[in-house]
């Protein structure tokens, strides 16, 4: 065992909530589409950190569900990042900008 840590669970949960809030604030306030995607990645990572923390503090010694969930979540996040950045590059080619406030073709 690498570290026999005795930190209570809520340390990790609060850190994860802070990371989620930072990612959410970035995704909601930045005008650049790439940084919105970065904010979403931060939120996904915060959720993954919660999974690992809950897995570590779970009394059942044989359960690997938390680890499995994070492995699949990382794979889905990688797919999401690839498709999202491809879409951003496509949008840049069409509009010549990735400023989200300028992409208002569908605005009523």
């Amino acid at each position, binding site marked *: 065992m690498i570290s026999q840590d005795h930190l209570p*669970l809520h340390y990790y949960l*609060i850190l994860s*909530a802070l990371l*989620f809030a930072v990612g959410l604030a970035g995704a909601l306030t930045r005008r650049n589409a790439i*940084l919105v995607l970065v904010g979403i990645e*931060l939120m996904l990572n915060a959720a993954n950190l919660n999974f690992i923390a809950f897995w570590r*503090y779970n009394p059942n010694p044989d359960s690997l569900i938390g680890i499995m969930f994070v492995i699949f979540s990382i*794979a889905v996040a990688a797919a999401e990042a690839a498709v999202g950045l491809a879409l951003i590059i496509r949008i840049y080619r069409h509009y*010549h900008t990735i400023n989200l406030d300028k992409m208002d073709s569908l605005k009523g």
Partner: protein
Amino acid sequence: MSHITPIAFAIITALTLVSAIAAMSLRHLVHCALCLAVTLAGIAALYLQLGAAFVGWAQILVYIGAVAILIVFAILLTRSSEAEPRPILSPYWGVGIAIAVLVFGVLAKAIFSSSLAGRLPPEKADPTVREIGNQLMTGYVLPLEVIGLLLTAAAIGAVIIAMKDSTSGRLASPPIVPEPAQKNARPETPPAH
């Protein structure tokens, strides 16, 4: 050992949070990408500290090795690597910050009112990669196959979306010419508001 863990946790937490805030607030996009890489490394360090070594290394390989590099490529391909002179935040940034603070408040209240809040970790051995592999090949084999299919579809889809249209590309290039006229027309509308 128990003296080292809180100090290590404090250092990793400070690094992760500061670089996350920097990644979301810096003006220069390349700096944002570098700060994101530091944040992801900090989260990987937390995984290692929590005893999930496989996930920690997978995080380093996938996020720092692939996703951060992909984001740098996207920044360079969209020529947004120069610092943006215009305001980087959208006009409704106050609402966004308020929503984020509200969400954090609700989460913190839920965490502190939970009975799990002060729980200490039980003694348990770290899972070996052999155990994880056994689980993946037995109980989780269907999700594994579905994830493989998803990643293949996403990779092909990303290539197709980002690919230049080879047949209609030259036909589609003349309609781009009116675009600068639209672009010039648009900045005049915001001052009117």
